[in-house]
């Protein structure tokens, strides 16, 4: 899936009610099957950019296109459909639902796109087996380690085989071993399925695995990194 963002601008309200500009007219293009890292200092707008691209927050100005569709102008309901079918998310804090077991958390991705449960269940089990968390299917998030939670969150993000995966510091809370597993999986997604992956990261080793690195500074894109042959 080709992702294009034109002139993305976002301003939040600060504690005193005053405006806090975060993004200033950012343009981004990510090709189908491309693995792009977004790097930059804390507070530069990396996560905000990812939230806008994933339709989790509306931009104040600018457009977001997925292939030939301007998704930023879609209705709220249509954006829900796009999120469910076309975008997978992996967050630094995992964002698993505490009241659901690991397997139920994974299956949640299929619930809102009306996938038949037996099919989704079979695929969820295969995915969890591959990531080494199948035996933890009945456990609740609080009963899992950070590495296990992130692998469950990853399974949830890719269960519907979305053409775009957005990962916000997915290795930020993991040790090197678990971080390597997640990064390898994201890399494999691009290579094997042609999934576009946008990864926000602080880790140099993570950025090094990307085809390209976008550097943000004070809400502006600095420079396009050199391309890497995959």
């Amino acid at each position: 899936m080709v992702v294009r963002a034109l002139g993305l601008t976002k301003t939040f309200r600060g504690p005193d009610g005053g405006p806090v500009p975060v993004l200033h007219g950012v343009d981004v293009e990510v090709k189908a099957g491309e693995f792009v890292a977004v790097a930059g200092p804390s507070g530069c707008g990396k996560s905000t950019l990812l939230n806008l691209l994933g339709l989790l927050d509306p931009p104040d100005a600018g457009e977001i296109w997925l292939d030939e569709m301007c998704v930023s102008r879609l209705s709220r309901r249509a954006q829900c459909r796009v999120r469910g079918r076309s975008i997978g998310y992996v967050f630094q804090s995992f964002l698993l639902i505490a009241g659901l077991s690991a397997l139920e958390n994974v299956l949640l991705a299929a619930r809102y796109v009306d996938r038949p449960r037996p099919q989704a269940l079979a695929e969820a089990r295969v995915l969890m087996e591959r990531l080494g968390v199948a035996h933890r299917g009945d456990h609740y998030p609080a009963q899992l380690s950070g590495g296990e939670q992130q692998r469950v969150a990853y399974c949830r993000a890719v269960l519907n085989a979305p053409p775009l995966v957005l990962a916000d510091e997915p290795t930020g809370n993991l040790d090197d071993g678990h971080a390597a597993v997640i990064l390898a999986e994201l890399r494999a997604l691009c290579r094997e399925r042609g999934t576009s992956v946008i990864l926000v990261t602080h880790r140099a080793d993570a950025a090094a695995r990307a085809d390209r690195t976008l550097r943000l500074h004070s809400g502006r894109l600095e420079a396009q990194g050199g391309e890497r042959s995959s």
Partner: protein
Amino acid sequence: MVAIRRLLPRGYLFTVLGIAVGVAGLVALGAMAERITRFIDGGDRFVLGQISVAGEGMGMGTGFTAGGLLRAAKIEQIARVPGVAAVQAQVMMPLDPTTSQFLTLTQELILGVDPAVRMPNREFRELPVREGRALRAGDRGVVVVGADFAASRGLRAGGTLELGAGRTFQVVGVLEKTLTAPDRFAIVPLDDARDLWLRRDPLLVQVFAGGAGGMSRADLNTGAAAAWADGVDPDALARRIQREVPGLNVTIPGELSRLLRQSTAFFSALLFGIGVLGLVIGGLSLSNTVTAAVFERIRDFGIKRALGATDGQLLREVLGEALGVSISGGALGVGLALAVGALVDARVLRDGQQLFLFSPRLLGFALAFSVILGGLAATYATLRIVRLSPAEAIRRGG
């Protein structure tokens, strides 16, 4: 607790308990209001069902409870008034002669009636018997007791009861609960009641011994209940009796009903206040609990929105959970109120009282109320949340 936890969506236990407390308050207050309503309505039905007559000058309060005398000749005159279908002589007196002779709402009374004469009250053709039998013509030395009267003394059919003046009666029946005056009655044959009256009142014995005024046992009545023929206006008939039979104090059913309503206006206002208070307290507690439970899960809703959940899907999901939680909380609250009510009533029953009436309509209303209000509160909270972007919902949920 473990069983309840298994039945509920994870994390909802305290929500259910919160709802249960609100519903329990609503049901308990409602049950007290129901009890008062039934008592007042029962009294109203009774006075509207017959024309009550007492001796002149004594008034309803004293004359009907051993303060006055309604002689047999007067009763025969009443029976001859056109429109009167039947007249039943009665003796009514307080069980405890040391208490006031005035009729009170909660007093235990001895009622003497002639079982051979049909009950003249149109609203209470016969008092329903729960255990044993009703009085029969020719009975002597037996008693039928009201439900509270029996419960406060542990009486059953076949037992015995001392009604004062050294007279012991065999209990032949226990009435079903009527939630009004007969619950505290001890009903005996008329002749037995006359005996009790004579034994209790030395002055009356002296009057009899002296043969004053040619009195006989048949003259020993504290009052009478008159029935009207079909199609007769009871208020008009009561006035006609007053006019045609001198020396009586006749109650006009319609006027007495109005008086009763006026005198119980305070209770009516009280129960209205109790009902409103129950609705407000229970409603606020319930809606606040459900709304807080939904807002507590704002992060979960943000995650679900990120996974593609539409407003409708989220609303259906939340309403489904709210339904389960509200029904569980409602049922638990009803159970809690029933338990508390049973405990309190078990205590006050020793004094022949009952504080709560858990009618089916009240319990049904409480459950429906909890489900509807729970659904509305959940809908309100969900609609507030879906206005937020998924990222904002996740941020606010921490």
